[in-house]
């Protein structure tokens, strides 16, 4: 049997390493797939299957997609349940000696997509890892597009049920499990039955107990935002974190600056909502179509930013049980509700804030372009105003947000000084850096813009000195700049002219001076493009170093956004502030079902009271004919209780 061609040998090596993925192998302007991958992809993406010589007698089946449209194809494959390994050219093929160096730079999986066409802007895209040991579980959850990272463990009774509740809380797109969980078929099947989720098995060794890497690279926080001290009690959570980090390493291949803090949370801190309650109450997802319309979130979401939208969803998914924390939130909402002008000013400012979290995610991945930088800058420019507004607040929570809000003036000024206001999409074609930011850029740019004038000047000077009236300056890719003289004037051409080209009715010449100017102009264009790119990358990494500061401000902004949204909804729909205490009583006057009320013609919903306590009124038996409104009534009580406790 003949040998495979060198390129194909390399392809096969890569494919063996990423055998569970479809490998997108970059060849020039295309990502190509070969053999079985090609057959699969051509079927799933309706691409034509062709062939390529590979050194064997038979050609290798092949199909490909153009690199600039790859995102769309990748997202289609991901939705169909495939993983895609992207194998890039790591050097310029023109400059390469022998076969071009290529390697996998990223593996795209449902839990790690970054392509904005696959992300819902008001929803986190989580990847979760579950470490099972005996009856216990450790869990770690991350949204790599924003950097959010949580971890916990389940060591109480009914562990598996608690685990299902946690999965329902986060609804991850992908779950990475250790072998022990993967092999317990019954549990895995239950997870698959209940959730539409992609499950990946990860080697047991990845889920190590080692704490060093974690503690050196991440800030570790507890529920209360205090540093974690007692790691020994967090062993299973740590195993889950290690498993997840290892998986992220394998798929993302680069250190991600924006993933820098891990929040350890205790499950008992949040209202425990079992899976079926979460589903039936339709808090953030409709049972029928998983959509947002017709859910509690749909009624309560008046957030102005994508970050606020995600934050609100998280809050609704984990209501608090601590009376003190709940009261702080309620006070803040009340203050914003009562103070309409204050709220209006804040909202007006929030509306100008872009998705800072995902923008810095892009920076950290090295994907951010000039426009992203400008969006980030414009967002940061709202911070001083927000800070000023918050300085007038009275309640504890808003004051706290005031203290935590970093205005990031240095960052926004830096971007403002470096990047032009309306940069192009590409970062590799120049035209990004502002005048005055870098001397060399300015000098080269002068050469490119004024160069045209220099050429025109030369033309005028030569016309004059030679007396050739119809002399023209021109440019071709092959010969560069030239002076063109028609046959009738050839006698006037001086000796210092160097002949370049002869055409039927004219001759083209260059002069020493023209060559020099040309060098300056042509060199400058190439140089400025390269330099602008370098400066842009440098700026991006400067910002990368300050990511934690930016994230803190983003957190303040999104919290404020949710609080304002609650206040606005409360005013619109005439909701009042509940009195929350530990008496164990539920006393609702004129309660309404937030969603049904909104769907019915206004004014037609009938309000009802509820009274329950721990003594005389514990169990209400509710009867009534079909369609009377029993289910609506009960759900309304549950939703009102939940809304009272959303932090």
């Amino acid at each position, binding site marked *: 049997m003949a040998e495979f061609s060198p390129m194909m040998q390399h392809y096969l090596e890569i494919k063996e390493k990423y055998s569970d993925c479809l490998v997108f192998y970059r060849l020039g302007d295309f990502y190509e797939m070969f053999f079985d991958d090609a057959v699969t992809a051509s079927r799933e993406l309706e691409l034509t299957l062709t062939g390529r010589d590979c050194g064997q007698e038979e050609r290798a089946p092949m199909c490909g997609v153009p690199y600039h449209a790859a995102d769309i194809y990748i997202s289609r494959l991901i939705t169909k349940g495939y993983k895609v390994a992207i194998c890039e050219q790591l050097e310029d093929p023109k400059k390469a000696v022998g076969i071009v160096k290529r390697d996998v730079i990223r593996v795209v999986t449902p839990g790690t997509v970054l392509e904005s066409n696959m992300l819902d802007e008001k929803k986190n895209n989580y990847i979760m890892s579950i470490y099972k040991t005996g009856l216990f579980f450790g869990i770690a959850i991350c949204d790599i597009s924003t950097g959010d990272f949580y971890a916990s463990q389940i060591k109480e009774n009914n562990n598996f049920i608690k685990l299902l509740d946690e999965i329902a809380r986060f609804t991850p797109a992908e779950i990475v499990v250790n072998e022990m969980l993967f092999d317990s078929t019954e549990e895995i099947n239950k997870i698959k039955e209940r959730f539409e989720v992609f499950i990946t098995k990860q080697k047991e060794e990845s889920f190590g107990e080692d704490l060093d890497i974690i503690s050196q690279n991440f800030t570790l926080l507890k529920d209360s935002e205090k540093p974690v001290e007692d790691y020994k009690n967090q062993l299973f959570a740590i195993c889950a974190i290690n498993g997840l980090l290892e998986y992220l390493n394998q798929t993302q291949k680069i250190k991600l600056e924006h993933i820098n803090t891990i929040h350890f949370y205790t499950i008992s801190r949040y209202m425990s909502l079992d899976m*079926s309650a979460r589903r039936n109450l339709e808090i953030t997802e409709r049972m029928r179509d998983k959509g947002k319309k017709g859910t509690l979130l749909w009624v309560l979401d008046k957030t102005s930013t994508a970050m606020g939208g995600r934050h609100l969803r998280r809050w609704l998914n984990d209501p608090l049980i601590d009376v003190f924390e709940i009261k702080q939130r309620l006070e803040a909402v009340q203050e914003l509700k009562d103070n309409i002008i204050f709220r209006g000013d804040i909202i007006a400012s929030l509306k100008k804030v872009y998705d800072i979290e995902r923008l810095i995610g892009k920076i950290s991945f090295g994907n951010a372009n000039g426009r992203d930088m400008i969006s980030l800058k414009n967002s940061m420019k709202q911070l001083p105003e927000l800070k000023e507004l918050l300085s007038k607040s009275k309640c504890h929570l808003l004051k706290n947000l005031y203290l935590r809000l970093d205005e990031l003036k240095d960052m926004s000024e830096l971007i403002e000084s470096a990047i032009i206001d309306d940069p192009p999409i590409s970062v590799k074609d120049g035209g990004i850096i502002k005048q005055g930011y870098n001397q060399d850029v300015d000098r080269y740019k002068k050469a490119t813009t004024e160069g045209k004038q220099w050429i025109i000047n030369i033309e005028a000077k030569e016309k004059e000195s030679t007396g050739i009236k119809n002399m023209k300056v021109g440019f071709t890719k092959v010969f560069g700049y030239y002076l063109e003289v028609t046959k009738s004037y050839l006698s006037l051409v001086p000796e210092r002219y160097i002949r370049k080209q002869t055409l039927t009715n004219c001759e083209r010449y260059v002069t020493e001076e023209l060559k020099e100017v040309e060098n300056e102009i042509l060199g400058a264009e190439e140089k400025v493009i390269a330099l602008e790119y370098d400066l842009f990358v440098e700026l991006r990494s400067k910002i990368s170093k300050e990511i934690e500061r930016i994230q803190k401000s983003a957190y303040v902004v999104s919290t404020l956004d949710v609080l304002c949204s609650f206040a606005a909804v409360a005013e619109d729909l005439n909701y009042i502030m509940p009195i929350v205490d530990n008496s164990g009583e539920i006393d609702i006057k004129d309660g309404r079902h937030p969603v049904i009320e909104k769907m019915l013609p206004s004014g037609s919903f009938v309000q009802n009271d509820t009274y329950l306590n721990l003594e005389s009124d514990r*169990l209400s038996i509710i009867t009534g004919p079909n369609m009377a409104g029993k289910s609506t009534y009960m759900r309304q009580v549950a939703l009102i209780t939940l809304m009272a406790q959303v932090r």
Partner: protein
Amino acid sequence: MEVSTILKEATSNSLVILDEIGRGTSTYDGLSIAWAVAEYIADREKCGAKTLFATHYHELTELESKIEGVKNYSIAVKEKGEDIIFLRKIIRGGTDESYGIHVAKLAGVPNKVVTRANEILKTLERKITVKKEDKKNVAGQLDMYNYKLAEIAHTIDKVDINELTPIDALNVLVKIKEKLK
């Protein structure tokens, strides 16, 4: 699975919502499940969670007089001739009438069928009234007792005398006696 999870997990800090549990199972099984669950939850030693429990089994309204902390509510409707008007108001006290037929009418079931259903309902109601009079004489557990009788009737009904050996017959008798305990 879901109800059993609730029973295991719920404490006096919980709010439990039970919507028609037992529906879908055969009438008697459903009733006994619903009954047992209500008793369990109302028991403060075992659970004591605040609970809203919607049910079609009007028998459960009897719990109000048996267990402290249980309160009956119903969602009010008004009958207007043959029609039914939903008032959507929750009021104290149980209902024990059947409205299924009205709903059928609302849902566009042909008139003939509704009329026939009404006839059947009338005969049934006559029978139920007899039972209700009995009930007044026997205190306490009567409804569960009637339910047991019905189960026994069901068991006997299922027996095929032609196929029954003497030993089988004895076994059936043992089962019946057990049920009556």
